[in-house]
């Protein structure tokens, strides 16, 4: 349903130079598929997500959702940014339902859904707090709840667990998987962590920098539901090694 065909994007820098953020990127993501993107900083992962979110337009190539060209944010697409980006004047609960309030959908039932998500994210009792009273990790969890409360068909997550400590990170990964299994949707999940990518995703897209290209697409053939036990499996090691080799080995795509 999400389809990028030979997409390229070049930014002008302030000093008049050019940065090619994406070059010849072709990816498609199915309706209920969980796709992870890994790659070094600056290889265009955020740009790719922002493109799917409708925040930037490709210079060349085509980006379509269900066959329709994306020119602005599409209904049913939710984005979790790298930073929490909470509204400082709203309490936690109202931050979570903010996207719904913009379209008059913050009905009592939706608010209850928001509270349930906050509970699942370990934020019970913090509903009435203001963002600045929360730690960075807690703020990021609020932002994740804000994405999920919209019941999106496409969920875009840009290093969502980057600000969390390792323990919370693992907990949140499993919680996300559970939620995804209960409410199937297309997820594009950007991460720096190879093991996180393999644990979560059906497919891992490895990107290489300057210009941002797809270096490898790794199919993860692990049964679901996933658990940390699978980290010991041969398939987990195969995928991790493949990804690692692509990131550090560089070079062109193997055929």
């Amino acid at each position: 349903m999400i389809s990028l065909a030979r997409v390229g994007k070049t930014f002008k820098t302030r000093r008049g130079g050019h940065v090619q953020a994406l070059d010849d990127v072709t990816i498609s993501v199915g309706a209920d598929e969980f796709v992870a993107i890994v790659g070094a900083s600056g290889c265009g992962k955020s740009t790719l997500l922002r493109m799917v979110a409708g925040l930037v337009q490709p210079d060349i190539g085509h980006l379509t959702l269900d066959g329709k060209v994306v020119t602005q944010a599409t209904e049913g697409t939710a984005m979790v940014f790298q930073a929490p980006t909470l509204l400082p004047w709203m309490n936690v609960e109202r931050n979570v339902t903010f996207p719904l309030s913009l379209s008059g959908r913050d009905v009592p039932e939706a608010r209850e859904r928001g509270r349930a998500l906050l509970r699942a994210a370990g934020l019970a009792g913090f509903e009435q707090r203001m963002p600045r009273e929360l730690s960075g990790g807690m703020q990021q969890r609020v932002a994740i709840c804000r994405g999920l409360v919209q019941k999106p068909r496409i969920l875009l997550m840009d290093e969502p667990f980057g600000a969390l400590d390792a323990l919370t990170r693992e907990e949140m990964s499993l919680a996300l998987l559970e939620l995804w299994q209960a409410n199937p949707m297309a997820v594009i999940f950007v991460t720096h962590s190879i093991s996180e990518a393999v644990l979560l995703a059906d497919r891992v897209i490895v990107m290489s920098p300057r210009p941002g290209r797809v270096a490898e697409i790794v199919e993860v053939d692990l049964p679901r539901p996933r658990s940390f036990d699978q980290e010991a499996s041969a398939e987990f090691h195969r995928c991790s090694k493949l990804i690692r080799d692509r990131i550090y080995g560089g070079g062109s795509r193997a055929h």
Partner: protein
Amino acid sequence: MLISTGAWTRRNLPVILSTLSLLLGWEIVCRAFGIRPFLLPTPSAIWTAVVPVWPNIAMHTAVTLRTVMLGLLASIVVSLPLAMLIASSRTVSAAIYPMLVLTQSVPKVALAPILLVALGANEFSRVIITFLVAFFPLVVSSVAGLLATPPELVELGRTCRATRVQELLRIRLPYALPFVFGGLRVAAALCVVGAVVAEFVGADSGLGYLIQTSMAFFRTPVAFGAVVILAIMGIALFQLVEITERLIVPWSSNLDNNFNEEK
């Protein structure tokens, strides 16, 4: 919000002491150098001149306060929509901003007599003059706040399919509120200036009028009394803005007075 009297005294002691020493120094200098009262009256002389005529002074104060408040209200009502218009489009901004700056390069004090002739020596024209003196900093700081909204918050709005109006009212305006209040503090002080200027030029009541008529009869202590009341009015308005800000913008960093919180 109950502050114990002890804490209140401790917090306000410096300003109380500095005010008292100012008054005392003033009194001493006037007496020591024998300055004549119609040039610079002592605080005690001002007090004794003002107290017997206080109902009259209270009336003039009420008149001025009314003009100040109406002028401030007009400034808010005009400045906020204007700021949103300027912040919402580059073209509008390019068309309006230079004109605004132009109005600011004209000295409003010079404009006051002309306006009073054109509009008549009434309350309405005094409010207009007050507004003209006060509104500009409010527009400028509001525009600054609207444009200072972090791009991430604006992008959040975009991904949530916020309309342009929603982006302005639900994201940019709340973000800009601390800036708006910053401008409002300046505007409140300027409103007092504007009202007095308007009363100098054309009024039959108000503290500005009182100062002029008192000086015409060399009743300097009464004029000084009016000046002191104007100063108090300015301070009170400033405090009013601050209290309002505390109530409706509790997240504002304008209010982080960390000095007071030491132990």
